[in-house]
Every structure is written in structure tokens, then in C-alpha cells.
């Protein structure tokens, strides 16, 4: 990586690298009361990363317990609480807000050429509502713990410790944060696009966030209501889900998955957006099939509401429902497949530049494809009967959620890091981090596919004991032990990789670390071409005017050293030296 101490290129006249949102205004209070979408995005970024860390440590504990048969480091009840917390923290406090609330908040107004989101105060409110939800979750841990799994299935959740009440309220409250962010984004995208930024010129990140927001607004109320019903049933004894009171436990599953399946798309759609940005920028090529990618996100958002029953093939729902849900599940697989093909094809006749964000994008394509095809496997009705609630499912959703969303999130953070902080991280170490994450991820989760198809059930503290105290069949114990051992070792490699990536990024924030160039990747979207790195407190000096598509690299003359107007209002003030944006090709120094 170039040391990049030169003044940022494409810098509107009069701007100094020091004139940025991070420094003005100063003081903790100005941060805590800010309505600047960029600062809110950064606060989200650090908060969700904190929860990712907590969830990750819990995951390491779960893996360590399973490294050998029998009780290894904790008893059954502790284990049940730990895997529940891992799920709740990762799903509700990390992955749902991860990309939309951190990267989305930071980027959405900049990418559409606006000064801020439509409702800046609501935006700040949603951050504090999210924190309140997180506090309730912590209260749930303190007051009794929760051992229901992140799914809170009834009737178990109605009779276990009272921590469940806190946790359901945490989910209820955090849901409002999600809804408010969604509304904010939808209005911003509809009403605040810069002149010339038509729907067909929206960066695909924005399409991803738009589709996500629709799902957030429409689906999240359902989980809120469900959690409230659960709360009322426990506190007031109203029979809704509890068969002892005349309720129906399967009804809870319908309600829960009616939200939680669309929530899967809340998690993955923004990741699709990030990958579209990474693949185009680092291929310096227009996306292969803009409309299929943009519209498949919207298609997924709507079809996502019609497949919840595929979580319930063995729950006792009618066979006919299962068949219909299986069919629709396949239909939703197709738009995801189209996206993967289009991303790969984007490299065709491009100019592929392997920087850390692109390495994560390539890892995404590899891992998400495996996550996708194993999802097709799980959609096969007869086969799902066997695989349901086994480690196959665990491996599948980790390939999609972690191999997909988390990898895209980390890749996106690496991509926009110079934009957010104006600093460039060490290329060698971030590459090592990416490699370790890829290797560690596969060692951790691939054996779990085999474990699951061999019959290892999920949420098991131990795999060696029968109800009568005698051992499980010996060949099964041996097989499970070997695969679990591999998976646990993999989790250490994965953790190491994440720490390397994390500290490499943090190290770039130290004083004296190399500054980033204005547009270090040679990207074509407004966030890179029309603002400084880091951006001005008000984003733009003047409202950008958009005259081309988000990935029209053939029109982006300033990238190729012959100067000129990028066509989006970022015309160079002095028009003098040709801004060389891309780092030198002989960039072997680190």
C-alpha cells in the first residue's frame, strides 16, 4: 500500500484534510447529542462491534464445551444460557443493525447526495432506543439469565427463568430502533436524492438498504407483537401459546418466523449491497446486470414474507402448508443465485484489483454460494425432515449469516474505513487477517455440515449420554468428537483472524498513521467522488449533480490520469494537475 501522504485527490478547493466531521464540533457531548448521520453511524459501528466481540467470545465458549464428549468447561444450564446469549446478541444486537445502522447510516445520505437523512433527530432516537434494548438484554442476563435459545419457543419460554421477560422486552424495544431506521431510510431515498440521481442511477448499496428498510418496517412489528403476547401470557396468565391455558405453542412459531424469516433478509440484503459496491469498484467495471441485481433485492424482500413455514416442516403444521412453503422457498433461492452469477460476471473484461475489501468480496462469493446451495438442500421437503434442527442447519446459516453478512460487513468496513476516518490501514496485516478469517471460518463450519447430516442435533451440551445414564452408541460419539474437535480448533483460527483484522484497523487510527487519499480505491459513487475523506460535517460543499450511472467507469475520466469532470459536481476547483487517484501499481511496500 502506498503511504499516501500526498494531499487527497479530488478534493474540492478550500478543503483541508483536517476539516472533517470527526473533529467539528468537539467534545463528548457533541457526539452524544449529534444528529449527524455520520457520527450516529460511527457510534453504531463501535457499539455493534462491541456486541460482535461479546457474541464471539460466547461462541468460543460454546465451541470449547463441545471439543470433547461429556462436560468440558461448564454444566448444562450454563451452556444453555451461553448458546442462547450467543444467538440473541448476534442476531438482535449485532447482525440486524450491523450493516444498515452503521455503514448504512454513514453512507446512505452521502451516496444519494443529501446533507443528512430525512429525520436526523429520529435517527439519534433510534440509536438510543437500540441502546435501551441492549440494556434490557443485559438486565435479562443479570436477573436470572435466559436459556430458551434465541427463538424463545413456547411453552418452554413460559416456564423457565424470569430473564425471558427482560429479553423479550429487549427484543421489543430494539425492534423500534429497527423500524425507525427503516422509515428514515425509505423517506431519504425517495425524497432526498441529488438532482440527476434517478432510480436507475442509485448505487446498488442503496437498493440493498431500500429493500432492507421495507422489510424492517413491515416485519418488525410482528416480532414486537409476538414478544408482547409472550410477555402478557407469562405475567397475566392469558392463554395464547400455552397448551395448559388452551393456547397453541405452534402458533408462536408461526408468529416468530413470520418476522424472523424476513429478518434473515434484513441481515443479508444490505450485504448484497456492499458486495455490489466492492465488486464493481475493484473490477473497475459496470455491474453485470444492474436491473436484475437491483430488482432481485426487492423481489427477495417481498417473497421473504411468504416462506416462514419452511422453518416448521416437522412442527406439526399441515403437510399441504409444508409443500407450499417448500415451493416458494425455491423461488426465493433464484434471485440470490442470479446475484452471485452477476457479481462473478462483473469481473469479465474488468480490471481486477486485489485489495483487502475485494478479498472479502471474493470470500463472500465462495462462502455465500455454499450457504446458498445448502439452503436449497434444506428446502427439499423429505431431506429437511432429516436435517432439521441438526448441525447442518447451524452450518448453513453460519455460511449465510457469517460467511455472507459478516464477511460483507468486514469487507465494507475495510472499504469505507478511509472514508470514515481518513486513514489507511496496513495492507499486509489486513490481508493476513482476511486469509485467517477465510481459513478459520471453513475449518469451523464445514465439518458442521457433515456433523448435521450424520445426525448431530443442535443445542446439545453433550453428545455422549442417554437418558438412562449410559453412553450414546460408541461409533457415533467417536465421529462427533472428531468433527467437533476440528470445528473448535477452527474457531480459534477464526478468532485470531478477526483480531488481526480488528487491530489492524484500530492501529491505523493512531497518530502518525498514513492518511488515506481522497478516493484510494478509484470508486465512482458519490461517497468517493464528491466528498473528502473524511467528509465535511455537511457532506458536500455544494449539492452534487449526477449525470451518469454509479458504475460508469468508462465516463470516469479523472481516474485515468487525464483529468476532467466526473459529471457529478465534483469538478476539480483549480483544474490543474491531473488527479491520480489509484495507487501506483508497483505498490509492494507495506
Amino acid at each position, binding site marked *: 500500500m502506498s503511504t499516501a501522504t500526498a494531499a487527497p485527490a479530488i478534493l474540492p478547493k478550500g478543503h483541508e484534510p483536517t476539516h472533517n466531521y470527526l473533529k467539528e464540533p468537539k467534545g463528548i457531548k457533541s457526539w452524544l447529542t449529534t444528529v449527524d448521520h455520520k457520527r450516529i453511524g460511527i457510534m453504531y459501528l463501535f457499539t455493534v462491534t462491541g456486541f460482535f466481540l461479546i457474541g464471539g467470545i460466547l461462541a468460543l465458549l460454546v465451541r470449547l464445551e463441545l471439543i470433547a464428549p461429556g462436560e468440558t468447561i461448564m454444566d448444562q*444450564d450454563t451452556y444453555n444460557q451461553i448458546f442462547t446469549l450467543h444467538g440473541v446478541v448476534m442476531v438482535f444486537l449485532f447482525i440486524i443493525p450491523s450493516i444498515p445502522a452503521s455503514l448504512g447510516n454513514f453512507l446512505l445520505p452521502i451516496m444519494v447526495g443529501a446533507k443528512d437523512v430525512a429525520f436526523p433527530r429520529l435517527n439519534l432516537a433510534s440509536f438510543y432506543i437500540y441502546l435501551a434494548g441492549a440494556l434490557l438484554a443485559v438486565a435479562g442476563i443479570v436477573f436470572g439469565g435466559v436459556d430458551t435459545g434465541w427463538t424463545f419457543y413456547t411453552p418452554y419460554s413460559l416456564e423457565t427463568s424470569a430473564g425471558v421477560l427482560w429479553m423479550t422486552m429487549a427484543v421489543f424495544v430494539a425492534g423500534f430502533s429497527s423500524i425507525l431506521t427503516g422509515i428514515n431510510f425509505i423517506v431519504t431515498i425517495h425524497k432526498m436524492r441529488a438532482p440527476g440521481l434517478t432510480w436507475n442511477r442509485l448505487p446498488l448499496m442503496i437498493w440493498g438498504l431500500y429493500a432492507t428498510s421495507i422489510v424492517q418496517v413491515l416485519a418488525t412489528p410482528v416480532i414486537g407483537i409476538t414478544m408482547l403476547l409472550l410477555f402478557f401470557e407469562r405475567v397475566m396468565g392469558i392463554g395464547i401459546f400455552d397448551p395448559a391455558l388452551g393456547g397453541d405453542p405452534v402458533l408462536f412459531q408461526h408468529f416468530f418466523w413470520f418476522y424472523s424469516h424476513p429478518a434473515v433478509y434484513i441481515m443479508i440484503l444490505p450485504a448484497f449491497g456492499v458486495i455490489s459496491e466492492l465488486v464493481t469498484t475493484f473490477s473497475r467495471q459496470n455491474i453485470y446486470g444492474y436491473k436484475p441485481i437491483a430488482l432481485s433485492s426487492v423481489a427477495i424482500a417481498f417473497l421473504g414474507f411468504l416462506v416462514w413455514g419452511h422453518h416448521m416442516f416437522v412442527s406439526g403444521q399441515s403437510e399441504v402448508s409444508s409443500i407450499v412453503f417448500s415451493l416458494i422457498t*425455491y423461488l426465493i433461492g433464484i434471485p440470490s443465485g442470479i446475484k452471485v452469477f452477476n457479481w462473478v460476471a462483473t469481473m469479465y473484461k474488468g480490471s481486477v484489483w486485489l485489495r483487502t475489501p475485494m478479498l472479502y468480496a471474493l470470500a463472500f462469493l*465462495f462462502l455465500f454460494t455454499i450457504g446458498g446451495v445448502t439452503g436449497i438442500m434444506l*428446502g*427439499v421437503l423429505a431431506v429437511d425432515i432429516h436435517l432439521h434442527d441438526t448441525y447442518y442447519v447451524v452450518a448453513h446459516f453460519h455460511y449465510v449469516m457469517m460467511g455472507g453478512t459478516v464477511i460483507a460487513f468486514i469487507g465494507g468496513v475495510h472499504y469505507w474505513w478511509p472514508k470514515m476516518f481518513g486513514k489507511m490501514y496496513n495492507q499486509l496485516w489486513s490481508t493476513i487477517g482476511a486469509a485467517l478469517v477465510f481459513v478459520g471460518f471453513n475449518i469451523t463450519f464445514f465439518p458442521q455440515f457433515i456433523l448435521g447430516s*450424520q445426525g448431530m442435533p443442535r443445542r446439545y451440551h453433550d*453428545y455422549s449420554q442417554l437418558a438412562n445414564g449410559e453412553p450414546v*452408541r460408541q461409533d457415533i460419539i467417536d465421529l462427533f468428537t472428531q468433527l467437533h474437535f476440528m470445528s473448535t480448533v477452527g474457531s480459534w483460527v477464526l478468532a485470531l483472524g478477526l483480531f488481526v483484522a480488528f487491530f489492524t484497523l484500530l492501529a491505523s487510527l493512531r497518530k502518525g498513521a498514513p492518511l488515506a487519499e481522497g478516493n484510494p480505491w478509484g470508486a465512482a459513487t458519490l461517497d468517493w467522488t464528491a466528498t473528502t475523506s473524511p467528509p465535511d460535517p455537511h457532506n458536500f460543499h455544494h449539492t452534487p449533480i449526477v449525470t451518469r450511472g454509479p458504475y460508469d467507469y468508462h465516463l470516469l475520466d479523472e481516474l485515468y490520469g487525464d483529468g476532467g469532470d466526473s459529471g457529478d459536481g465534483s469538478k476539480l476547483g483549480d483544474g490543474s494537475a491531473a488527479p491520480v487517484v489509484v495507487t501506483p*501499481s508497483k505498490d*509492494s511496500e507495506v
Partner: protein
Amino acid sequence: MNNRKLGLGVIALSVLAIIGMGVLWAVYGWMPAQKANLAPVIDGPFYFVKWASAALTLGVVLAMLYLMVKYTRKSETQRSEVVIPNTIMETAWIVLPTILVLVVFTWGFKAYVTSNVAPPGAYEIYVKGKKWLWEFTYPNGVVTNELTVPANRPVKLIMTSDDVLHSFYIPEFRVKHDVIPNRYTSVWFESGQPTATAAQLETPGYDFVQVFCTEYCGTAHSAMGTRLNVLMQRDFDTWLASVETPSEASVDYGEKLYSQKACITCHSVDGSGKVGPTFKGIYGRQQQMTDGSVVESDEDYLYQSIVNPGGQVVAGYQNQMPVIALDEVQIQSLIMWMKTVE
């Protein structure tokens, strides 16, 4: 770290990952042994999708690596060619996967219908899931905690739960269904070859088919597995006729019941507290109850605690214990044995 070196690194890691997955695939295989006659029906679509998935993933990864190498950036000012997406190609990769998934859907749907509907005249066994054991009731009224079935004959399990959700899972039969309180659900299977003879069931270490609970059900969810024994019809009849409670209570029988009825999951004999109080020295012990009273655990208290577990719960423990199906001789044997645990 230039582009070329990084490209080689990406290729190396991808190849490493594929080889690693391939080795695991070859060494460990996927589906467990097919011990039910319908297992091949389920495994058909599984193996088809597995190979199709492998081909598709490999195709995507190879295409990705090829394009990455072929179009690697050569200079910072390199312009890329304008590419107009090829409509035929775009249509192809929408239509072909659609056809593929519809084939898979139909296959899975047919296998589901085949494997879901029990043939008339199947041998019926009632199953009850409790925290944390299974009870199997045979047509002649015999109750066991391990499932024993006749070979090569359709068996239908009619299942319900006493408390929370459970799920009855036999991996080698490809059979699974949730077990729900206040509702009957069912699964059926036709097991293949016998796993043991009636005589072998009397000696430890015999072969069996593993049963798991796969719906999370609380503390000892992972210790709710049991054995499934497949006997030849004649052996099965002999076995079923011979399963009966001894006519007289005994300490030895009580000790056997302690593990058979899964008391062992929650009550230790070494003094350590688990889900319930330890049995070590339980007889005659003065114990404080959740309502504050102090009760001596004499025969009467032990009897009441077995038939009505929620009646008087020892302080510091939850009211968790289910009512276990036990007859008078069995309860008496258990109490006789408990008195000896010191």
C-alpha cells in the same frame, strides 16, 4: 503485496479450501447408515442435490478465479472495456436454476408424500416425551423407556408431550417429528434388519439404533437420547410377552429403575446437586421446602414426591419433575433402593 502475488494467494487458499472440504467429504461421508427401508427414498434427492451443489459451487469458484486472473489490473490507469450484459446468458442463468430447483422440489415433495403417510395396519406404539425421558406404550400396555420394534414391519409412533416441545429423531431412519403437548403427532417407519436378538438385550454392549431429542427442551435436552432395538418378529413377540414388572419389590430392581426411568439425569447418588436433590442419604433427611416448612423425607414423602412431584418441592430447586409412569411395585422398589443410597 502486488496484485499477482495476492492473486496467487487467493487461488492457493481457494484450492486449499476445496481440497480440505473434499477430504472431509471423502473421509466422513454424509448420511448415516440406511437402517430403515425408506431411507434410500430420502437419500436420493439428498445425494442429487449434494452433487449438483458441489458442481455449482465449484463452477462459481473456478469462474471467479479465472476472471480474477484473466482480468487482473495491469496498470493504475487501465481502462476496462464496456460490457453490455448478454441477454441470452442472463436468461439462461435465470431459467436453468429455476428448472433445476423445480426438479428438486418435485423430487423432495414426492419423497415426502411417500415417507409421510403410514400404510394401513402399521403397528402402533404410543410415545410420550417428558423432561427428560421417553415413554413407549405398547398395545398390550407394557411401558418401556427404550423403543423396541419388530423388523421389516411398518411401525407408527403416536406421540405427545407432557410438558414442553420435544422432537423425536432417528437419524439412521431419516425420521423426525416434533412432539407437542396437548396434541398427537406421528411418524412411521419400517426398520430394516434386526439389530439384536431378544437374548442380547439382556447383556450390556449390544448394538442399537440411536434416538435423539432435537427440539430444545431445557437443562438436560442433550441427555434425552435413548436406544431403539430392532428385533425379528418372533423375538419381538417373545420380548414383549416377557417385559413385565417383577411381582415383588426389591432393592436391585429399584437400582435398575433409577437409570432406566432416567432419575439419574436429575438426581445424583454422589451428593452433588443437579436439577433435583441428590439421593445420597436422602432417606430420613430433614429438608426445607420451598414453602418454608421442614419435612423429613420418610417413605411417605418419597412416595408423594414420585406420584405428585410438584406437591412439596425442596427449597432451592425448581418444580421440574414430570410424573413418571410407574406402578406400585416399581415405586416401592425405588424407595427401598433410595433408603440404601448413602
